[in-house]
C-alpha cells in the first residue's frame, strides 16, 4: 500500500514539472516584467540594474531553476500593481475560496450520489427520466446565470439571503453559512449533475453485473444489494469523477466569486487579468493546478482502498 502511494507520488512529478515549465514560459511570453514594473519613463541603466537584480540577464534555464526554488519556498515574486508579495495577496484570499469549495464538494456529493443511485434504481421509468432530464438541463445552464438567478430570486425578490459578499468564520458560523448558501448552490449545479450522471451510469453498469444477480440469488434485499454491492462497486468511477470534477469546481470558483462578490482567489484572478498583473496570475495557475494534481492523487489512493484489484 505504501509502495503504491509512493509510486503515485512519483507519477505526479512529471505533471507538476510540465505545469511549472508551462507557467514559467507563460510569464516570459507575457512580456518584460521590468518594463511594466518601472513604467515608461525608466532609463536604460535603471532597467539594466533591475534586470540584473531580478536575475533576468542569466540563461533561461538558470532563471527557471531559481524561480522554481523560490516558488517552493512560497515566494512568487511581487505584484506589478500593488507591489505587495504575491503569496501574501493570494493567501489572504484563501479563506473564502476554501470555504466555498468545501461546502460545494460536500453538498454536491450528498445530493448527487443518492440522486444517481435513485435514478439507477428506477431505470427506464419516469423518475429516472426526470432525473436524467434535470441533469442534461443542469449541464446547459452556465454557473453565472444560475448564480444571478439565485440572487434575483432569494436576495432581491424574496429577500431571504444576503445579496452578495462574504462573512468569514470568525464572525460567527451562522453568518458564514448564510453568505455561502447561494454561492454553494450555484457552484454545485454543474458538479451535482456531473456526479449524478456518473453515479447513475456506474450503478446501472454494476446492476448488470453477474455478482448483483448472485446477491439477489442469495436472498439479499434491494437495500442491501445497493448498500453492500452496488455502491461499493460503483465507488471507483464516482470517486474518479469527483477528482476530475475538481477542475470544474476551480473554474466555478472564478465565476461564482465574481457573481457573488466574494473576496476569494477566483476574483483575485479576474482582477489580476484585467490589470495584467502577471505574477499573480502565475501564482494562481500554479496553485489551482497543484490542487488539481494533488486532489487527483488523493483520489487514486482512495480508490485503491475501494477496489482491491487496483492495488496490485
Amino acid at each position: 500500500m505504501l509502495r503504491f502511494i509512493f509510486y503515485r507520488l512519483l507519477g505526479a512529478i512529471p505533471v507538476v514539472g510540465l505545469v511549472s515549465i508551462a507557467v514559467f514560459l507563460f510569464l516570459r511570453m507575457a512580456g518584460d516584467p521590468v518594463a511594466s514594473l518601472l513604467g515608461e519613463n525608466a532609463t536604460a541603466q535603471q532597467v539594466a540594474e533591475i534586470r540584473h537584480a531580478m536575475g533576468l540577464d542569466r540563461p533561461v534555464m538558470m532563471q527557471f531553476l531559481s524561480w522554481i526554488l523560490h516558488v517552493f519556498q512560497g515566494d512568487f515574486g511581487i505584484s506589478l500593481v500593488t507591489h505587495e508579495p504575491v503569496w501574501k495577496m493570494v493567501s489572504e484570499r484563501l479563506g473564502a475560496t476554501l470555504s466555498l469549495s468545501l461546502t460545494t464538494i460536500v453538498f454536491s456529493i450528498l445530493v448527487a450520489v443518492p440522486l444517481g443511485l435513485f435514478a439507477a434504481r428506477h431505470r427506464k421509468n419516469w423518475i429516472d427520466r426526470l432525473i436524467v432530464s434535470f441533469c442534461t438541463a443542469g449541464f446547459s445552464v452556465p454557473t453565472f446565470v444560475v448564480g444571478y438567478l439565485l440572487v434575483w430570486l432569494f436576495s432581491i425578490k424574496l429577500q431571504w439571503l444576503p445579496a452578495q459578499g462574504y462573512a468569514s468564520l470568525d464572525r460567527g458560523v451562522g453568518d458564514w453559512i448564510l453568505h455561502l448558501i447561494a454561492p454553494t448552490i450555484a457552484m454545485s449545479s454543474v458538479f451535482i449533475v456531473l456526479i449524478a450522471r456518473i453515479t447513475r451510469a456506474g450503478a446501472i453498469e454494476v446492476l448488470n453485473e453477474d455478482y448483483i444477480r448472485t446477491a439477489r440469488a442469495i436472498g439479499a434485499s434491494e437495500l442491501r444489494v445497493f448498500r453492500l454491492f452496488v455502491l461499493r462497486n460503483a465507488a471507483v468511477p464516482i470517486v474518479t469523477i469527483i477528482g476530475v470534477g475538481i477542475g470544474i469546481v476551480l473554474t466555478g470558483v472564478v465565476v461564482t466569486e465574481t457573481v457573488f462578490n466574494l473576496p476569494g482567489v477566483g476574483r483575485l484572478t479576474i482582477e489580476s487579468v484585467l490589470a495584467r498583473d502577471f505574477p499573480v496570475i502565475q501564482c494562481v495557475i500554479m496553485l489551482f493546478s497543484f490542487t488539481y494534481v494533488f486532489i487527483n492523487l488523493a483520489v487514486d489512493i482512495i480508490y485503491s482502498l475501494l477496489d482491491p484489484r487496483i492495488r496490485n
Partner: protein
Amino acid sequence: MTEAAACPQKPVLEIRDLSIALPPGSDRAFAVEDVSFTIHPREIVCVVGESGSGKSVTSFAIMGLLASALKPVGGEILFSGRDLLKVSPAELRELRGNRLSMIFQEPMTALSPTMKVGRQIEEVLRIHTRMSRAERRTRTRTLELMRLVNIPSPDLLSRRYPHQLSGGQRQRIMIAMALALEPALLIADEPTTALDVTTQAQILEQIKQIQQRSNTAVLFVTHDFGVVADIADRVVVMQHGKIVEQGLAREVLQSPSSDYTRSLLAAIPGLHNRQSRALACDVPEILRIDGLSKSYASVGHFLRRHAPTHAVDNVSLTMRRGETLAIVGESGSGKSTVARCVCGLIDPTGGMIEIKGSNRNARTGTLDIERHRLVQMIFQDPNRSLDPRWTVGQSMIEGMRNLGVSRPQAIERAGSLMEKVGLQKSALGRYPHEFSGGQRQRICIARALSMEPQLLIADEAVSALDVSVQAQVLALLARLQHEMQLSILFITHDLRVAVQISDSIAVMHQGRVVEHGPALEIFSNPRHDYSRRLFNAAPGWNWTD
C-alpha cells in the same frame, strides 16, 4: 399415476406447463413454452439444449431472477407446495439462498470484486440467520463450508478477494455459498462451462459428492452431453423453448426417441479418429518450430525486477504438408501463444519458426506479405473477427487487394470462395451482423483462403459454436483440406474435436509440449502423466466408446 408409483417421494420441484413470453418483435413468441418436469430429492436432473433453447430461462424463472422483459404467462412452478410464480417478493427472498440456491456459469464475474470471499459466504448466513457476535468473530461456519468444498487453507483464502483466486476456487466459493444453508434444491447453470477440463471434472465430482451427502436435489443446466453422461440421473432435452424429450439419462443417451436428440448426439465428435490417413514419409515439411520460447517481462520497476513468465518454453514441432496437427491444452498452457508466434502476430523471444512453401504466385516482394500468403488464421470469436462496419465483400477482398489483385478480379474470386464455403455470392453485399456465428466463421475461412495459404491456423475456431454448427464447420475444414492440400494447425481445448480431426497431436502443459505424436497412438495410449489426467477429465470420455 405410473410416475407416482415409481417415485414414492414427493417431488422437490414440479414445473407444470410453464410458458414465458418474449417481448413483441422477437423471433419467436415464447422463450419457454409448455414446459413441465419434476425433480425429486437426491436427484440430479440435467436440462440440456443448444443456445436459445430456453434452458437457462427456465432455471432463472425458478429463482425469480428473470430479466424484466421476460414475463411468465402461464403454468406454475411448485416448490414444496408453493407456486413460486405467485409468492410475494419478500417470501421469494426468504427462499433464495436458503431453500433454493443457484450457481452460475461465470465464476470470474459472479462474485463481488470488492468483498473478501469469506465475507461473501458469510453474507448468506447474515441474511438468513441471526449470527451471534462470537460466530461473526470466529467464522466457524464459513470456514467449515470452505473446507467442505475442498478449499485449501480456508483461514487464509477466506481473506482473499475473488481476483486473487483461480476460476475453480471461485466456483467452489460459489458452491459453498449455495450450500451454506443446505437448500432443498440447487440450480447449477452451466457451472463448469467456463472452466478447464480438469477443473471441470473436480467441480462435477464435488457437486455429486455433496448431493449424495445431503438430501439436495440438483437441477443442472448444460449444453454438454459429456457432462450429462457423467452426472445426470434424468435428462430433459429442450429445443426452441420446448421439451423434446425427457427420461432416464441412460435411456436417453443410448436410445433417444426424438430426431432432435439423435441429431445432437450424432453431432458430438465421437472418439473415433478420422480416416487416419497414412501420410507418406516423403511428403515435405511445411512448418518446423525449433526451440520456440516466448516470455513476458512481468510488470516491475527499476528497483525490483520480477522473474519473467514463460508463456511458451522451448517448444519444437514439425508439420508435413496436408497434415492436421492439433495442439490441445488447458487455458494458460501456451497453445495460443504458439499459434500467434507462427502467424507473426507476436514476436517470439527465442527459437526459430520456419515456414516452407512455394512463392510462385507472389507478386509483391516484402517478406511480411510472403508470410501472410503462406499462413492465415481463423479466430475464435466469429462476432469480432469481421469488421462490423465493412460489408463481407469489403472484408473478403482486403487481403487480395494488398497482394495487388485488381478489384474486379478480387470480387470475382471472393464470390467463388463464398460458394466454396457453402454461402451465396450475394452474401458479399451484406454486413457481418446479418449472419449467424457459424456463417461468419465460414466467411472467415473464405477470407483466409483468399490469400491461398499453405498453412491454416484455427485458434479455437469452433469453440464458440453450438455442437451441430461445430460439426458442419469441422466438416467444411476437412473438405477444404482435402481439396486444397491445406495443412491445418488446430488449437483447441476440446479433446473430442481434436480426436476427430487430427492426424497428429501435441499436448501442451505450462508452456511445454509434454507429448507429441500420431493422434491414434496418443489417444489410445497416452504416455505422459498429464495427458492421462487431461483425457480422463474430459466429460463423458468413456461414454461413447
